[in-house]
Structure formats: structure tokens, C-alpha cells
């Protein structure tokens, strides 16, 4: 698998989740950048130009929805696929994310870590 050098940006404020995202995705060979809030996501996205962004919704400073909106309106960033990774799993949340341009939606507690990796692989091999 030629995942070396493939960059994934993870916007996640929960330290435990951030850590497990990093451990698992690095184990799969990806380069992982962590952002603690939406503002950081935008900064790192511009700097590192990742191939995929995993984005939590409830985050301090700037939430995932607002961040997604900005990502999808920025001509330099809108091509980057975004997978929402949240524990908000209500229909309105999923619909809102899709409407704002998210490529996929994943409810963390209802997804195994392997399924998460498979979703990532759909966008970045």
C-alpha cells in the first residue's frame, strides 16, 4: 500500500479520540495532522494541503459545521474531501453536513475503528 506521504488532517478536540485517530492512521501509513478546533483546521489545511480532512462537529472556538462551510467556500480547499466524524448522529446533523458539502459522515460510537479506516481508504488510497 502506497499511503506513505498521504496527509490526513484530523479536527478533533477530544484528546482520547485525537490520540486514537493518530495511532491508527499512522499505523495504516498515513501522515496525520491534529487540530484542536475549527480555526486550527483551516490554518493547517492551508499550510499542509492534506488529501483528506476528518472533522468533528462539536469543537471549541469554531465548530465543525462552520469550518466545513468555510472549507467548501475556499477555492484552494474545496477540493479536499471532508468526512464528518461526530457522535451527533441525528438525521438533521447528517443532512446538514451533506448539504454543506461533506463527502461522508461517520458516527464514532457506532463505527468500528476498522470501518473508519475503510472509509478513509475510499478517499485516499
Amino acid at each position, binding site marked *: 500500500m502506497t499511503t506513505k506521504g498521504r496527509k490526513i488532517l484530523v479536527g478533533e478536540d*477530544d484528546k*482520547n479520540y485525537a490520540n*486514537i485517530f493518530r495511532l491508527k492512521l499512522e499505523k495504516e501509513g498515513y501522515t496525520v495532522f491534529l487540530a484542536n478546533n475549527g480555526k486550527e483546521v483551516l490554518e493547517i489545511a492551508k499550510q499542509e494541503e492534506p488529501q483528506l480532512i476528518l472533522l468533528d462537529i462539536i469543537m471549541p472556538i469554531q465548530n465543525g459545521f462552520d469550518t466545513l462551510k468555510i472549507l467548501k467556500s475556499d477555492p484552494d480547499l474545496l477540493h479536499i474531501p471532508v468526512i464528518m466524524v461526530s457522535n451527533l448522529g441525528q438525521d438533521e446533523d447528517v443532512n446538514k453536513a451533506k448539504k454543506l458539502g461533506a463527502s461522508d459522515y461517520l458516527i464514532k*460510537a457506532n463505527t468500528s475503528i476498522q470501518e473508519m479506516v475503510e472509509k478513509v481508504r475510499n478517499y485516499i488510497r
Partner: protein
Amino acid sequence: MRSKPKGRFSFQAKDIREHIGLMTVSFLMVFIGLWGISGFAERAILFLVYFNPDLTKELFSSISAVFVFVGSMLLTVQAFLIIRHEKELTEEKQKLEEALLNSIGDGIIATDEKGKIIFMNPQAERSFLCTFIECRGHDIFDFLELYDEKDRKVSRSTHPLQKIFFLKEDAHPFAMKPKDFFYLKKEGTQKKFPASLNAAPVIVEGVLRGVVVAFRDITKEKEIDEMKSSFISVAAHQLRTPLGSIRWNIEMLMEEMDSSFSETVSSVVQNIYETNKRMVEMVDDLLNASRLEDGKVENRPEHVLIAPIIQSVIQDFVPEIQKFELTVLFEVKKYMPIEVVVDPKRFRDVLQNLVGNAIRYNTVHGSVSIDITNSEKEVIVTISDTGIGIPEGEKEKLFSRFFRASNALLHSTDGCGLGLFIVKSYVESWGGRVWFESAEQKGTTFHFSVPIIK
């Protein structure tokens, strides 16, 4: 409430009748007395003028007329006193009744037999933003416009007051369950408020004389209900975060564990994983049930192949299947082409619950089989197990919220009794049905259907 108009009207009519009799008798006696007195006076004058001793006898016989007169006068006075007293009593009773109706927290509207408003208490006036004087004589069906939760107007033919006016067999006072309510429109505005309704016919000697409607503005209760739901929803989301994190950490740990770890360690890790999974399921059930209660569950049907969903649900339960050494029979290839139009997420949730129950309430070395039958009208999924079964007396309650069968409680203490409530609600949401056969200690077979939409 029912006796109020009835009581007031019949009381007055009866009294008038009684007093007419009493007064007639009194006046007749007064006339007889006066006639007697005039006779007595005539004789007294003759007696005095002529001093005729022959008239003495007649004079004395006429004295009785004086007594009759005096007696009848007394009777008349008494009749007047009785009437005055009764009038006072009636007025007092009316005042008391009015005070009672006015101080009741519920809105009360009474109509005549044609449905025209004849009474409204102040609470009803406040709720509808109109005074009784303004609303008197209005048609109750026009006045009491009902709207359902989706803001659709309830038609006149399905209006709950209809059956009361037409005195159908079940036209007893109807009381609605706390969850059944309608939105009522404030008079002359577009503002609506949630209310629970009660209505009763006023029947006098077998004839409908009117209808009394009592309603309660449940805006506050609705607010509290929404607060409760949002609390559950927030709590459930907050619980999901650490539970999800634990899940991924254990999964990661299980990936890293190799044969160098002792059996104890791997068994403990496996236990943690399963317990955590159960907790996630419970939190999800709680969240789903709360959303079902709020009517917030959306149905998003799409064309789906059901065999792969069933297979993936079975896959989720592999650890439990292995633990209890169960045999799960499902022929994926045979059912592969079957496609239905259904919300795939809800469909998965239904299967997850039914397959989960078939596995959890099974016996060691038992089996679970899943079959699909399809006709032109519907697709039926059948899940059979060789488990503990459902006790005969508890079958009716099986789909109610928080219900767990007595033998299920003995078998396993975890589970919150929401699974089958969710199953039934979801299946019904897509127009299907769910039913089962069960024998204790032998097993249970659940069926649910998905109608074919053409």
C-alpha cells in the same frame, strides 16, 4: 360539569310549576274568603241596621268565611315567603356554580344541542382571546378548530366532538391520553396552543341537550416535555463520546494483542469490549426512543438490497455467536437479489434489535435462522431462535416501552426494554407490521414486513 346546565334548568322549571299551584290555591282561597266576607259584611250590616235576631244565626255561620279569608291570606304570605327564600337559594346556587366554573383552571365551553356556544368560563375566554359575549351563539366546530402536530386542520368529519353530537355508542365522556392532544387556534389570530380535550354530552331524559367541552392548555407541559427530551438527547450524546473512544481503544488494543498474551488477558479485553458495546446500544436505544416520542424520526426510504444488511448485522454479533456457540443460518446468496424501498438505517436498527434478541436470549448451542419471503405486496423477514421464549401472559406488553419479560430479566439483567418498542415504531413508520410466535423454553419467531412500493 355535566349536571350544571341540566341542574339549573330543571330546578327552575320545577319551582315555577310548584309555585303556580301554590299561588293558584292561595288566590282561590282569597277569592272564596272575600266572597264569604262580603256575605258576612252584608249580614252584619243588616243585623246592625235592623237588629233582626233571626239574622244572628246566619251572621255566625258567615264567621267561618272570615277564618277562611284569614287562613288564605296567611297561606299567600307564606307562599310569597317560600318563593323569596327559594329565589335567594337559587341565586346563591347559581353564584356558587358560576364561581366554581370560573375558578376551574381548565377552560370550559358548553353548547346547546345544535352546537351553539351557550357558556364559556373566563379560562376559556383567556385561552381563545375572546369574551363569552363575543362568542355566544358561535358554532362549536367553527370555534374549536383543531390542528394536529403537523399543523394539519382536523376535518369536521373526524372532529372528536362529532361522535358526541351524534350520540354514537361510544359517546361517553372521552378522555384523551396525555400524549394525545390537539392544537387550538386563538380566535381571530394564527396563534395556536397545545391542549388536551375532554368532552361530554349533556343528556336530559335521554335527549341530548348540549355538550360540555373542557380543555387544558398544556403549553407548559409541552415545554417541560421538550426540556426532558433535550436533556436525554444531550446526556446520550455526551455519553457516546467516551463510550466511542473506549470502543476504538479496545479495538486498537485487540489488534495489537498477539499470542504472547495470556488467555485471561484476552478474555478480559473481550469482556470489556462487549460490555462497552452493550452500553453504546443502550444509549442509542434511549436516544432513539426519545426521538420517537418527539416525533422527530425521519423516514428516508431508498432502494436497498437487504441481504447484505442482514449479513453485516450478523457480523456485528460474531463475538456473542462464538461465545454461546450458536449456529446462525442465513443464505446470503439465495436472498441477494431482494430489493426493497426502505430507510436503510431504520431497517438496520430493526434487524439489529431482533437479531440481537435472538442471540442474547438463546441457549448455549442454540440456533438462529433468518429467512426472507417475498410476495407481490410485501417482503417479510423472519428471525427464529431456539431461546427462552416469551411467557404467555406477557406477550401483549412486549412492544411497550421499558418492558422486559420476566424470564428475560432472569436471563440477563442488562437491557432497558426499548428495543422492541423501537422495532415496532420503525416498522410501522414504513407501513409494515411486526408480529411473533413464541413458546416458552422453545423459542421465538419474529416477522416483520416491508411493503413493496411500485
